[in-house]
């Protein structure tokens, strides 16, 4: 009962924050206020929102779940996790913030339109919708599965409640609500993970019993191959983790969008430090939580329940409620970032292109409607859930890495990149990835993960087509790169 009460209080707090944030949105300045919080956010909030929107259920649920299923090989798979901030902040963040302000851009397709033209922007918008919908659905599934296991809430009701809460605070408060809720959510997530890891080490008295519990399940649980030989070689693992997740991090439209809201780029280094510290707390400690769950619950019905089961077993219901809120926060902070991204893609990149003279009132209506439709669509997908969250998260991450990362890098740093090349880069990256994901003889050729091939296809397409097509104008190059 106490656990449920804490969780309900968390949901109510999120809704209240949404209502308060809505007071700061001026209708005459709707696009900038709603989608970039009036470009008013400082480095601390941006640092926490960037990382909390990236650290999804894929991290907080699936990391302990993967240790539970695959053993210590997860340590190799996430061996560069503390440095994710380095790529998203160091590679793309600063330039996106600068260019967003210079061209009044509010989304990745918006930036692509300024740099690459309408066709590339439209393709970007369509692919964002294709890639992000299943990713959002997975977040709802994760929260609802946890609620079902911990507090006995009906799965479908859990999907509807979490989707409803996110929808309310985002459709009222936009990016500002998202920034405030994400900051609160990030702090709850840090608390939850710290509690989980400290609880495990306190309970077992050190790592030795955890290692022995993993070794007792089989030798593959303590080597780098992992259970079922899921990481057969170092090359496969390298293309599966640093390439896949690293490129997905800075190719993720819902993460990149955060930087459009930055007040200015002074103290940008603070964003890097805050993000790095958050990753340092989250990822290694989540692996400790996973190892603890192996030792405590050798026969869990589902590996996604490793962290929730551990929290309810180890802690007083009050602390278990905080951990549960932290798990939900990870998923909700990701899905709200995606909702904003889908909404801005529809409103700015589709509707406003068709109706450039649309009034701010109409734009607000379209923005709200698109948010509602996106949340409802993801919830409908979530009501027919797949069995294993990590699988869907990986497919979606790979989609982000192979579709958007390379053309974004081109837009930010390569004056020779052309619009036609960016369009082909997105199409080829997306197509090659999913062709190689399909079961059959062409899966992961030459021992390289499909994401490695997808990123390569995207890079080759961008370079080759750019060199074969007409150079961008001197004016465009001067505007973007000086």
């Amino acid at each position: 009962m106490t656990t449920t009460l804490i969780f309900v209080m968390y949901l109510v707090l999120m809704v209240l924050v949404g209502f308060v944030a809505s007071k700061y949105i001026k209708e005459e300045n709707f696009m900038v206020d709603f989608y970039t919080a009036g470009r008013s956010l400082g480095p601390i909030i941006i640092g926490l929102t960037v990382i909390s929107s990236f650290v999804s259920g894929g991290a907080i649920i699936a990391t302990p779940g993967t240790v539970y299923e695959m053993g210590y090989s997860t340590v190799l798979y996430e061996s560069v996790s503390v440095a994710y901030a380095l790529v998203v902040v160091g590679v793309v963040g600063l330039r996106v913030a600068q260019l967003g302000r210079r061209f009044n851009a509010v989304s990745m397709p918006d930036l692509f339109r300024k740099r690459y033209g309408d066709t590339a922007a439209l393709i970007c918008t369509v692919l964002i919708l294709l890639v992000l919908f299943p990713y959002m659905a997975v977040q709802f599934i994760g929260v609802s599965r946890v609620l079902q296991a911990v507090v006995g809430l009906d799965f479908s009701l859990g999907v509807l409640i979490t989707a409803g809460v996110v929808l309310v605070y985002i459709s009222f408060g936009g990016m500002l609500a998202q920034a405030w809720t994400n900051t609160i959510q990030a702090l709850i997530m840090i608390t939850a993970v710290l509690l989980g890891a400290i609880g495990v080490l306190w309970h077992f008295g050190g790592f030795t019993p955890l290692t022995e519990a993993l070794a007792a399940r089989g030798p593959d649980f303590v080597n780098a191959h992992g259970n079922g030989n899921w990481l057969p070689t170092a090359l496969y693992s390298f293309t599966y983790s640093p390439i896949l997740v690293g490129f997905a991090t800075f190719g993720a439209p819902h993460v990149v969008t955060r930087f459009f809201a930055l007040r200015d780029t002074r103290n940008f280094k603070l964003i890097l430090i805050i993000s790095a510290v958050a990753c340092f707390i989250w990822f290694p400690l989540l692996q400790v939580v996973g190892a603890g769950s192996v030792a405590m619950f050798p026969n869990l019905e589902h590996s996604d329940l490793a962290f929730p089961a551990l929290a309810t077993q180890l802690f007083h219901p009050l602390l278990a409620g905080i951990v549960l809120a932290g798990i939900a926060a990870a998923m909700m902070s990701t899905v709200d970032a995606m909702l904003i991204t889908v909404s801005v893609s529809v409103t700015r990149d589709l509707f406003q292109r068709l109706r450039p003279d649309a009034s701010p009132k109409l734009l607000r209506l379209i923005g709200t409607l698109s948010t509602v439709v996106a949340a409802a669509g993801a919830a409908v997908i979530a009501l027919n859930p797949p069995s294993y969250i990590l699988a869907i998260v990986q497919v979606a991450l790979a989609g982000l890495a192979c579709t958007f990362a390379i053309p974004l890098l081109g837009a930010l740093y390569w004056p020779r990149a052309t619009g036609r090349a960016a369009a082909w880069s997105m199409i080829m990256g997306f197509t090659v990835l999913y062709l190689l994901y399909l079961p059959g003889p062409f899966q992961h050729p030459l021992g390289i993960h499909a994401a490695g091939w997808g990123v390569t296809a995207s890079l080759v397409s961008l370079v080759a087509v750019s060199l074969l097509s007409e150079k961008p104008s001197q004016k465009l190059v001067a505007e973007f790169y000086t």
Partner: protein
Amino acid sequence: MMPGRTNAFISLGTFLLFGILTHLVASLWGFDNPMDYPLIMGLPRWVFLLLVVGSIVQLAVQIIYALTLFKDEGAGS
């Protein structure tokens, strides 16, 4: 000089270097007989190097980088 390009090169290069080094460690000690020597703090050597040492090094390098080489160039405010 294009704003942010130095940051991007150093950041992406460092990230990939971390990836190469951690996979080198795993190749040396992680894939075969990982328990064939005394555990370090209760962890197999390759896990200790990646999980404990690797995480601390990655955090330290990022903080030092942010405070020294990272440039808030072209503030654009």
